[in-house]
């Protein structure tokens, strides 16, 4: 007999569903649904009390409408009435509604909680289960507060029915996941662990999920579960297929529970107790042996269940990584699966083998399967499987097989799915670098990469090849020759032009002896690509040309001719135009010596972690992206980035007045960097001709058009500032760079620079997850009077941040007059659908606009006396937070922006400082005196801080800010 008889149901519901299904169009469907919603609404609001049956019918209709994707914003109250009913049918549908349409209205939750409380104490197992299900489904904090104490009691009570125990275990797990602080296991720990011994397999099945989760969080308290799990596993593994009756699934005893037991054991290292370990090894061997036995059934379910256990056993063996014998057997088993006719098994075998490849015991054994894996990469029909094969090839690669693997991956790239190409490119680039014995092979490989999959070669990859070529003189000649040849192809990828331009600009001289690649031939070759390239590439080529003038004086007139033509010198792109003008001028004015110094060969790059590796890690992994890592990447990646390049003035010249340490000089980074840091004329070129204002105005334009940025994507109101926003702000009073904010998803780093009354702040938003942030938007706002005091301009950021990626935003700051409040920074984005809405205070404080002022003692006290009106002084006496350390105090005072004046105060213990705050309207002189009583007992140490300035609000504000710093 079927468990659900088909006859019973609700006529109205069935008719409604049929109506919907007969709708010919989406519009008709929506119309019908709206009619029904109006009907239900009026019934619910009507005067007549509805009977349970009608309520149930309408709630069912609402559920159906919800499933079709329509919002349901009413009916919750009726559902609560239903679940409070004594009738099972009504109660069940009420609970179902609440579980499907969870609502966090606390009034509602209170009512639901009451009903749940009644059901939990009803001793009716069905009602108890319904209530537990509801708690597990809603899982809100309020519910946890109400029931976290009660449920463990139900779970371990001797008289609880098995089915209720099962539900209680998983309900408790859910509450533990939402509110670990409310679920206190202390006294229950041992009884919960002993559920592993329960006679009812269903109870063990439910309990093991709970125990696994608790063990992950508190391994020590739960470690007794290891021996219990081993003995339970051993009993299952050694049982005959009939012993466990209903828990035998297609002749495999309790496969689900076996898997879960093996997973639980993966939370722990191998058992220390010899007997337990022996028993476990025996189990694992039995499982491996069974895989070789003939199947007891031809059904796919039988082999599925058997192999599910086998894969978990192998995962445990790999996790222990201590039994060479088992590891090799595991590897052989996986090797068999690699050629299995079941696609699922091939997929899983490739995946497991990836982890196996990193074990020293089995690495060699894994390598023996290389041909099979390569074959899988070439012939598998399923892209998921091919992806796993590529992963495994990457994992099994070492010096002995690198050439083969790289060659195979390269040839696969030509036909690879678009979705995995970029990752493949990164992997090839990393392997080529890591296992390069001779660097000519490396150069060939990367150039091949660009040739085959140029669109997928990210900047990191070609930056890296240039870094390596520059650092290794033995490969420079070869590289120059190879790129020269590669550029001769009629159509070559723009990335190839970039690499070619850079390398020939540096090392073209190494092949210039050959008449086939004479300087002029080289130049003409490069220039033949020029017009097909994008602006950043053209900018790079212009730099290559000026380098040519230095390398090959004979090309000077030709190149000058090119620079002088209208399409360069009057180019509508400000960057190109500027380069053309500057380079032309430089080449005609500077002497050969100056030119040689300015355009000297690039010095070697400092050794860093491969930027590509960092990129792959980000792409793949959960690893947090810190600002430091990003910086490393950028500096490492951008061949030409960074102020550390002081010894190549030409290259840093155009960058000299660009404040960002990460802005690149060739302007190769796409829009953000170029736009935000328009290269203005640097110190060197200022001598040649002064064009500072032009560049500055370019900057203003750049920022200007951005103020008409589109409104932020998310429509929700900005959240109020976080409670800790003020503390975060205080951290930045005495420093300009650092991490402003970090949570599990997002990290915000800051770099800022101030000059006079102007400042520029770089915000780095790092996505720490592996998932995209969508609808990402930021808004900087000035509360209260601030808009009249501070002028902030910023660009919008891209609305999408890929997992592991970082985006940068520039805020230009102008101080109009002194101010107290801090601007607010609101960040909104969606992560997995949930809107994140964070508001922080932007650490722009008045002291940032300090200009230090040096003065001698006499002058200081003279001014001090001039500022003697009571309102000009602000004073605070406060306790030292971390003891008094002179060096720390000095650093903080310097960080404040003032000049620290030595030998001014008669008492050498005291600190005095002087500075002028620069605002657009006025300058505010400021004197500061900090008196510690260092002799006092630690804990009693105090400071007295006195500020005097020509403006009372400034004294007060700086006094407040600084007093939080010690």
């Amino acid at each position, binding site marked *: 007999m*079927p*468990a*659900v008889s088909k*006859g*019973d*149901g*609700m*006529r109205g519901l*069935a*008719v409604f*569903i*049929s109506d919907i*299904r007969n709708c010919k169009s989406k519009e008709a469907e929506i119309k019908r649904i709206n009619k029904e919603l109006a009907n239900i609404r009026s019934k619910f609001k009507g005067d007549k009390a509805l009977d349970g049956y009608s309520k149930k019918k309408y709630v*069912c209709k609402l*559920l*159906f409408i*919800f*499933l*079709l*994707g329509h919002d349901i914003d009413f009916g919750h109250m009726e559902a609560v009435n239903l679940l409070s009913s004594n009738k099972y*049918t009504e109660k*069940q*549908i009420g609970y179902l509604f609440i*579980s*499907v349409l969870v609502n966090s209205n606390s009034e509602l939750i209170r009512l639901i909680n009451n009903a749940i409380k009644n059901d939990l104490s009803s001793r009716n197992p*069905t009602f108890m289960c319904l209530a537990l299900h509801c708690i597990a*489904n809603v*899982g809100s904090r309020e519910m946890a507060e109400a029931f976290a104490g009660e449920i463990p009691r139900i779970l371990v009570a001797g008289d609880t029915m098995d089915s209720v125990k099962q539900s209680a275990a*998983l*309900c408790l797990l859910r509450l533990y996941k939402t509110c670990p602080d409310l679920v206190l296991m202390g006294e229950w720990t041992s009884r919960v662990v002993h559920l592993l011994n329960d006679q009812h397999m*269903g109870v063990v*099945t*439910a309990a093991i*999920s709970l125990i696994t989760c608790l063990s992950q969080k508190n391994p020590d308290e739960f470690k007794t579960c290891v021996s219990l799990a081993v003995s339970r596993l051993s009993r299952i593994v050694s049982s005959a297929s009939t012993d466990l009756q*209903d828990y035998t*699934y297609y002749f495999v005893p309790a*496969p*689900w529970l076996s*898997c879960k037991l093996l*997973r639980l054991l993966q939370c722990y290292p191998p058992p220390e107790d010899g007997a337990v370990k022996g028993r476990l090894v025996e189990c694992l061997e039995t499982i491996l042996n069974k895989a070789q036995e003939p199947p007891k059934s031809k*059904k*796919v*379910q039988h082999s*599925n*269940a058997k192999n*599910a256990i086998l*894969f*978990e056993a192998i995962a445990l063996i790999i996790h222990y990584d201590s039994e060479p014998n088992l590891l090799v057997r595991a590897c052989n088993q996986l090797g068999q699966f690699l050629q299995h006719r079941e*696609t*699922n098994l091939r997929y*899983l075998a490739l995946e497991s083998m990836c982890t196996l490849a990193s074990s020293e015991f089995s690495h060699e054994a894994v390598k023996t399967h290389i041909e099979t894996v390569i074959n899988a990469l070439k012939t598998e*029909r*399923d892209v*998921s*499987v091919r992806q796993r094969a590529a992963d495994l090839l990457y994992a099994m690669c070492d010096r002995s097989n690198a050439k083969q693997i790289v060659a195979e991956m390269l040839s696969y790239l030509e036909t690879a799915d678009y979705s995995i190409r970029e990752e493949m490119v990164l992997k090839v680039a990393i392997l080529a670098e890591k296992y390069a014995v001779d660097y000519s092979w490396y150069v060939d490989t990367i150039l091949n990469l660009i040739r085959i999959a140029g669109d997928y070669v990210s900047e990191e990859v070609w930056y890296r090849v240039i870094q390596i070529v520059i650092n290794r003189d033995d490969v420079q000649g070869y590289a120059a020759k190879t790129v020269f040849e590669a550029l001769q192809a009629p159509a070559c990828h723009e990335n190839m032009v970039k690499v070619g331009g850079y390398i020939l600009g540096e090392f073209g001289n190494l092949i210039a002896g050959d008449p086939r690649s004479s300087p002029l031939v080289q130049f003409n070759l490069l220039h033949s690509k020029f017009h097909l390239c994008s602006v950043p590439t053209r900018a790079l080529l212009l730099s290559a040309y000026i380098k040519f003038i230095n390398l090959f004086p004979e090309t000077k007139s030709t190149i000058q001719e090119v620079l002088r033509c209208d399409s360069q010198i009057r180019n509508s792109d400000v960057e190109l135009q500027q380069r053309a003008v500057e380079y032309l001028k430089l080449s005609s004015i500077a002497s050969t010596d100056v030119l040689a110094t300015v355009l000297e060969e690039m010095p070697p790059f400092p050794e860093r972690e491969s930027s590509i590796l960092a990129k792959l890690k980000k792409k793949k992994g959960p690893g947090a992206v810190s600002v430091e890592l990003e910086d490393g990447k950028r500096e490492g990646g951008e061949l030409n980035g960074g102020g550390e390049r002081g010894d190549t003035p030409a290259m840093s010249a155009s960058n000299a007045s660009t404040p960002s340490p990460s802005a690149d000089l060739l302007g190769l980074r796409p829009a953000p960097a170029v736009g935000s840091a328009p290269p203005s004329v640097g110190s060197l070129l200022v001598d040649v001709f002064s064009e500072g204002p032009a560049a500055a105005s370019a900057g203003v334009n750049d920022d200007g058009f951005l103020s008409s940025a589109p409104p932020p994507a998310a429509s929700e109101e900005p959240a109020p500032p976080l409670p800790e926003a003020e503390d975060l702000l205080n951290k930045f009073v005495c420093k300009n760079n650092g991490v402003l904010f970090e949570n599990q998803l997002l990290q915000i780093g800051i770099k800022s620079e101030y000059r006079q009354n102007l400042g520029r702040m770089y915000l780095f938003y790092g996505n720490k997850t592996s*998932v*995209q942030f969508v609808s990402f938007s930021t808004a900087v706002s000035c509360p209260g009077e601030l808009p009249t005091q501070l002028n902030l301009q910023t660009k919008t950021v891209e609305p999408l941040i890929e997992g592991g990626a970082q985006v940068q935003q520039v805020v230009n700051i102008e101080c109009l007059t002194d101010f107290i409040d801090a601007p607010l920074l609101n960040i909104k984005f969606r992560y*997995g*659908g*949930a809107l994140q809405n964070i508001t922080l205070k932007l650490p722009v404080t008045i002291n940032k606009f300090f200009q230090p002022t040096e003065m001698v003692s006499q002058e200081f006290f003279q001014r001090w006396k001039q500022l003697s009106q009571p309102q000009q002084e602000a004073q605070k006496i406060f306790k030292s937070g971390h003891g008094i350390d002179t060096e720390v105090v000095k650093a903080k005072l310097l960080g404040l922006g003032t000049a620290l004046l030595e030998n001014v105060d008669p008492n050498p213990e005291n600190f005095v400082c002087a500075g002028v705050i620069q605002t657009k309207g006025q300058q505010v002189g400021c004197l500061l005196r900090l008196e510690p009583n260092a002799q006092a007992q630690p804990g009693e140490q105090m400071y007295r801080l006195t500020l005097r300035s020509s403006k009372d609000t400034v004294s007060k504000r700086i006094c407040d800010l600084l007093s939080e710093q010690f």
Partner: protein
Amino acid sequence: MIKAILIFNNHGKPRLSKFYEHYSEDTEQQIIRETFHLVSKRDENVCNFLEGGILIGGSDNKLIYRHYATLYFVFCVDSSESELGILDLIQVFVETLDKCFENVCELDLIFHVDKVHNILGEMVMGGMVLETNMNEIITQVDSQNKMEKSEAGIAGAPARAVSAVKNMNLPEMPKNINIGDISIKVPNMPSFK
């Protein structure tokens, strides 16, 4: 843990959706669409696992699915679950539905959403597996039905509607779900892979 269980038909119409993590209603609908898009474009005979869509958590999550006649059963799980284990779980779920509805078909899921939720509730709770033993699950469902019957009395009478509806002229008359091994009434259906 299991993040979500989705059932939709060959045209992407959702027939059951159960999320064990909170998403907005809008996102849930998007996830269903995204998942359908990912799963439906795959050939038959390829493997039953693929990386999850972006909305549900990307490559940290796997979609494990089975395609039976007109319906896709998709479980979205994190890395703590055994892929083959979940595949078996889907099979247990479908076999259970088949027993409870006696040759389950798409219409049963449409007209008895509440029942399907109940059956699922006996197997999975809060994203974790509660019970894998089919007989145990059916026993629970049976006892619930008995309670329902005993309460129904006269109110339960207007029930013939469903059987009437089933024979109405519907745009697509679904076939029985073919679950491969157990009592199949439709002849010559290829067994699922």
